[in-house]
């Protein structure tokens, strides 16, 4: 944009300062945890640690409840992801391709998951779960994890199914493919990127979910974020930093793997129509 760059000078300096503040604000906390996790000795006014090492990694990995929280988190996230794929993908296909009564009402009803403040919703759910005996059960935790993902797990795949051209499906039918064959060989592969993105988000979302689990899963379902709550108050900051990295690592790896598929547009389509 030329009209903008013509006014270089003070503008560029302001721009530079703002962007630096921005970078420090967003990257600083994460970078700080990274440094803390590998430091062994760090006296107060020093800017960098005096001794580096893996002392706190050994400390954290030797704690049984911490290690078991990792496997519990992955176990729950896997269940939530599998369950939401099985339940939501057929619904998404129906929304995109099939005419049935009250279709609009059903599609919009998924917006309800995002039309209420989260903690209020979790407390309401906890009140219900208390009454029907789902507090401190695996089913209760899985259900509360599904609230956040129901919407983008139906909306993103719905958008992907819609984007598959009907002409392609029809021409496959014309050469004699059965409806199921068309779905498996044409529709599903073409909608796959959207489904993959939604599934990755679902997995990550469940891995990171803290507030709902804190309400309904205590005391038996201590997932990683819940353990993190207590680590923050009970352990030195280096131990917390090590655990933060362990908790963030799966996210970073999965995102790198799915990098090609994740874009602002796909993400935004899970929350609004365009």
């Amino acid at each position, binding site marked *: 944009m030329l009209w903008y760059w013509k006014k270089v000078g003070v503008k560029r300096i302001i721009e530079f300062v703002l962007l630096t503040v921005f970078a420090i604000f967003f990257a600083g906390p*994460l970078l700080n945890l990274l440094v803390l996790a590998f430091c062994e000795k760090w006296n107060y006014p020093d800017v960098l640690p005096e001794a580096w090492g893996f002392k706190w990694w050994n400390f954290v990995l030797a704690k049984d409840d911490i290690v078991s929280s990792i496997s519990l988190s992955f176990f729950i996230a896997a269940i939530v992801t599998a369950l939401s794929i099985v339940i939501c993908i057929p619904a998404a296909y129906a929304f995109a391709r099939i005419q049935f009564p009250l279709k609009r009402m059903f*599609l919009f009803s998924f917006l309800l998951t995002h039309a209420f403040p989260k*903690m209020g919703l979790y407390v309401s759910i906890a009140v219900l779960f208390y009454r029907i005996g789902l507090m401190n059960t695996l089913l209760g935790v899985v259900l509360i994890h599904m609230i956040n993902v129901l919407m983008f797990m139906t909306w993103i795949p719905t958008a992907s199914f819609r984007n598959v051209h009907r002409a392609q499906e029809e021409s496959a039918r014309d050469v004699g493919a059965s409806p199921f064959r068309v779905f498996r060989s044409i529709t599903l592969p073409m909608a796959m990127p959207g489904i993959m993105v939604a599934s990755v988000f679902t997995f990550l979302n469940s891995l990171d979910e803290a507030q709902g689990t804190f309400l309904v899963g205590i005391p038996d379902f201590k997932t990683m974020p819940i353990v993190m709550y207590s680590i923050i108050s009970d352990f030195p900051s280096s131990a917390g930093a090590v655990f933060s990295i362990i908790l963030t690592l799966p996210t970073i790896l999965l995102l790198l793997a799915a990098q090609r598929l994740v874009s602002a547009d796909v993400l935004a389509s899970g929350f609004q129509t365009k």
Partner: protein
Amino acid sequence: MSKEWKQALAGLAMVLPSFAILLVVVIIPILQSLMLSLTNETGGYDLSRYHVLFTDKGMRANILFTLRITVITCALVLLISYSLAVYMRFNQGPIVELIRKTYMIPLFIPGVIATYGLINLLGNHGWLARLLEHIGVTLPRIIFDEKGIIIANLWFNIPFTTMLLSSALAGIPSSVIESAKDVGAGRYRLFARFIFPLSYKTFLVALTFVFMGVIGSFTAPFLLGANSPQMLGASMQQVFSVFQEREQAAAMAFFTFLLCSVLGAFYIRSMAKEENVRM
């Protein structure tokens, strides 16, 4: 059975399982907490649980505190995110490319981790304090009070809001902007007449998300906030889990629903309108 009937049944059968989950985790809990919040201590129905919200000194302070934080955060988030989204839409170059590639990362960082990182960076004797000490500046107390909660909420909300807004701005055709410029529209005119009107809907959706996100937040106020006044999210959890007053917790939850009802209804309506055009 006719073909339409078969289709209709198949469609319903495919949608019902996910709707059933929605029923259990959203619709029934909300109706139930409404009912529960209307029961009084003797088992009858009245508004006494809501009465407490406005007469109890601590509770009233919590509500005002929550609203204050929410309004401040919304204003800051929208201002910063909108500027950033506009900046990314109308500038090119390596810096913009870098922001575009990285600004979504915080979306995927667990809230607990981000809050913990902020505590370590900005807290007493934190990294920033150490760095500033070297150039002779003492960092004032900025975390563990309302500033801390606002800072954490900025961290959580700016990336998401920027994402929504830049996706809306990307939808504005460059030709519209070029032709406006050709007929001599200045930068502010361009913004007021074209860019903002073409993206204000997403702007409102973003406002809805931030508003509800902050009112319903728990992690930041739980880890950073003082014991009183508390944000409603943290206070609700305490009333439910520690004091075990489920009716009162339900009333607080429903009160936050009421606070967000206008924006929530707007969100569903505007989504529904857009979708109707396409169905």
